[in-house]
């Protein structure tokens, strides 16, 4: 079974802090994604990566950066957390040779005070 894990289920941070969200997948998938989910807005893509050290901006990259130094790990960084970044963050991975199914982690619920 594909497993996507995220470093924390719940996280509370203060405004201005630097926040790291980690995502690890164990299926050698090429593609990895970070989404945020807010009520009434569905899932919005922040960044995705199709290979190590490669990344592309999604629909809402402002205030975020990402890092993919190893194939299995994709990190989302909030350089200076703000209250409007309070949200549920979902990581996903997919294979380019597979059926394009995205496998999601359990999510990290981030509260910025």
């Amino acid at each position, binding site marked *: 079974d594909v497993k*996507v894990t995220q470093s924390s289920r719940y996280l509370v941070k203060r405004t201005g802090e630097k926040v790291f969200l980690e995502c690890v997948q164990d299926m050698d998938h090429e*593609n990895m*994604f970070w*989404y945020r989910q807010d009520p*009434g*807005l*569905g*899932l*919005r*893509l922040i960044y*995705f990566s*199709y290979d190590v050290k490669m990344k*592309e901006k*999604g*629909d809402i990259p402002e205030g975020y950066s990402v890092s993919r130094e190893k194939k299995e790990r994709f990190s989302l960084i909030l350089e200076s957390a703000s209250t409007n970044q309070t949200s*549920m963050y*979902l990581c*996903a991975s*997919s294979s*380019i040779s597979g*059926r*394009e*199914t*995205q*496998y*999601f*982690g*359990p*999510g990290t*619920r981030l509260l910025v005070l």
Partner: protein
Amino acid sequence: SQQGEEDPQALSIQEGENATMNCSYKTSINNLQWYRQNSGRGLVHLILIRSNEREKHSGRLRVTLDTSKKSSSLLITASRAADTASYFCATRTTSGTYKYIFGTGTRLKVLA
């Protein structure tokens, strides 16, 4: 940007009834997928339909795709309380990247 829209936003039915959810999108797609999300959890893939397919079945799920109307529907037959969840459609455009656009979701509640 392209955004999938699900309809209805919320649906409440009795156990045993069928549930139908609709998804509309704006640009040409390579494929469309449906996902389920149980409360506060990650999404789980249900079914994928490609742009050259019109209908697909998987167990109690039936998906249709009408590319001329840019819409898809998900039918869950003989619903169960365990089907209570939010359902999202996701589309991949024909642009060549593996970027997916998710809709805003339909919240389904199945009453026992």
